[in-house]
């Protein structure tokens, strides 16, 4: 159990540009923190710096009260679950689990006890004497988790551990990871590019973009008040609509359409509206008129794709609604997200 503190952490690869820079995160004891962002944004780099697999070129990383910048991975008291599981192919599952304990000189009886305990928790007891190649993807995933938990480390680090599984198994394992982490109460950092995984797992989310933090917050907080147009577009599925609009003395104009806005000032802005925040309206004078291009049926709901004043727009409607070629839509004032058209920073 430990806190993990990153202070102004940066990484520049030799001969390359900065992969991450200016990262400040304070992770609470027992917290489940998820790093999320598009491919190449530096999530793995950041995680690997905490693990000690990459040198830290700037700033300090603390695990507990100890600065670990110069500490070997083995001495950081962390365990890591890799994307490809990194199970030792020539060892049985039991040997895989025991390897880390053996290297640390744990007594044999204690090793057996811990391995059996982990095997029971993860339900991999029947496979203990098999080699990894004789296991399914899901079972390998469990063994990889088992290797992390037998060590009883201060922190778990996960680098996209579910991305090699099929969609259904991914959802199941996601639940199991969450449950396990709650039960053990071990501080965890989890890297993913899947915003759904991030939302469902995290106590707190860190959204990264181009090596910098865009926003840190609880999943719902990030969902409800994205700090930038980037976060707005990245978090939530289907993605938030981002429209070019002009702010004009308390009104938002999108082409000839206009909406009341609770922000003063004027100039170009980016207007964000989540598809699920758009409703149909009848007879409202300032309704948004959307022309329908095509419809995706999702069962309970349907996604309507179309255009508003020539700009793409998506809205989620209930499956029983009848559709014409044109839809009159409205949204609550509180559901409008305004971002600076240049910097993308949140305005309202």
């Amino acid at each position: 159990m430990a806190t993990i503190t990153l202070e102004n952490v940066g990484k520049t690869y030799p001969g390359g540009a900065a992969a991450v820079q200016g990262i400040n995160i304070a992770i609470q004891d027992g917290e489940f923190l998820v790093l999320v962002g598009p491919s190449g944004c530096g999530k793995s780099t950041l995680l690997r710096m905490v693990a000690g697999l990459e040198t830290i070129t700037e700033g300090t990383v603390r695990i507990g009260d100890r600065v670990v910048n110069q500490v070997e991975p083995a001495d950081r008291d962390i365990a890591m679950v890799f994307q490809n599981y990194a199970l030792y192919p020539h060892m049985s599952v039991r040997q895989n689990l025991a390897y880390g304990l053996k290297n640390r000189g744990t007594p044999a009886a204690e090793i057996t006890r811990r391995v059996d305990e982990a095997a029971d928790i993860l339900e991999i007891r029947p496979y203990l004497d098999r080699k990894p190649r004789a296991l399914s993807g899901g079972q390998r995933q469990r063994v990889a988790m088992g290797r992390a938990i037998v060590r009883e480390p201060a922190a778990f680090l996960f680098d996209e551990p579910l991305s090699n599984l099929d969609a259904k198994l991914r959802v199941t394992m996601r639940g199991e990871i969450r449950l396990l982490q709650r039960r053990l109460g071990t501080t965890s950092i989890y890297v993913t590019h899947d915003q759904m995984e991030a939302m469902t797992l995290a106590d707190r989310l860190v959204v990264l973009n181009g090596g910098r933090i865009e926003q840190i917050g609880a999943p719902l907080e990030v969902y409800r008040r994205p700090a930038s147009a980037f976060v707005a577009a990245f978090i939530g599925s289907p993605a938030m609509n981002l429209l070019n609009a002009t702010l004009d003395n308390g009104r938002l104009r999108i082409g000839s359409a206009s909406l009341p806005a609770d922000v003063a000032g004027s100039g170009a802005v980016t207007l964000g509206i989540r598809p699920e925040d758009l409703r149909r309206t009848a007879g409202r004078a300032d309704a948004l008129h959307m022309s329908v291009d095509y419809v995706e049926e999702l069962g309970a709901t349907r996604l309507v794709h179309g255009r508003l004043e020539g700009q793409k727009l998506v809205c989620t409607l209930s499956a029983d609604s009848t559709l014409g070629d044109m839809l009159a839509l409205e949204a609550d004032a509180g559901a409008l997200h305004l971002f600076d058209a240049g910097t993308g920073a949140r305005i309202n």
Partner: protein
Amino acid sequence: MKRTIFGNQLLPWLLLAPQLLITAVFFLWPAGQAIWQSFLREDAFGLKTSFVGLLNYRALFNDGDYVNALGVTLVFSVAVAALSMGLALLFALAVDRMLKTANMYTTLLVWPYAVAPAIAGILWWFIFNPTIGILPYLLDFVGYDWNHSLQSGDAMVLVVIAASWKQVSYNFLFFVAGLQSIPQSLREAAAIDGAGPVKRFFTITFPLLTPTTFFLLVVNVVYTMFDTFGVIDATTQGGPAQSTNILVYKVFKDGFLGLNLGSSAAQSVILMGIVIVLTIIQFRYIERRVQY
């Protein structure tokens, strides 16, 4: 496997013919000749040839020189395999840790393989020559009197080095490829699991290189048994006192210099047998056992 169906029954045989012909002329025919010869004995003037059954073979194992050659070959093979594979693995491990300069080192390390064995042998002959060589000159400073034409130990060291140096290139390439096929994350996982570099090597890297190592072991032993004729001939010619007289060199000496064709043929049949056995072991083992 993909099967191609030929309409014409003759065509596949025609296509195979050149390869089969070469195998027949340059391998099967001489091999058959050798087997036949090994059962014959010629008199001293080459006038009369008689069938003697297994006499040539029986004579061999009662011949102290042949038993000596077996021992010498064993020492030589093991030493060459150990030296060339050990060095190659060291170089490969070094290259595996490098990023930018790896290509240059790889190229340099592969060069020796392009040098013909006889030329390499002469090169070593010059380097080690007791009167004009650079190495004996340097060894003299540390008080060692190098003379491979008198000292059997020196001679063995010389042929082992001369035979190993080009094998290092070959082994190196395979070890580099083997190392690159081990995912980096395994070593990282082991590092997090508390294994230092040495322990990582012995518990993760080396076991995962087993297939490569075993393959190379067989290839190197076969190489030392057959391909080192040029090296021996250019450096020690089997001497001093037969101390570097390996099997393949003895075949040549007894057959072409001693003109004892029956015995020479029997020796080459035994050599052939050894190689066939090694090859079978290799195929069997690589297919079944050496995987994880």
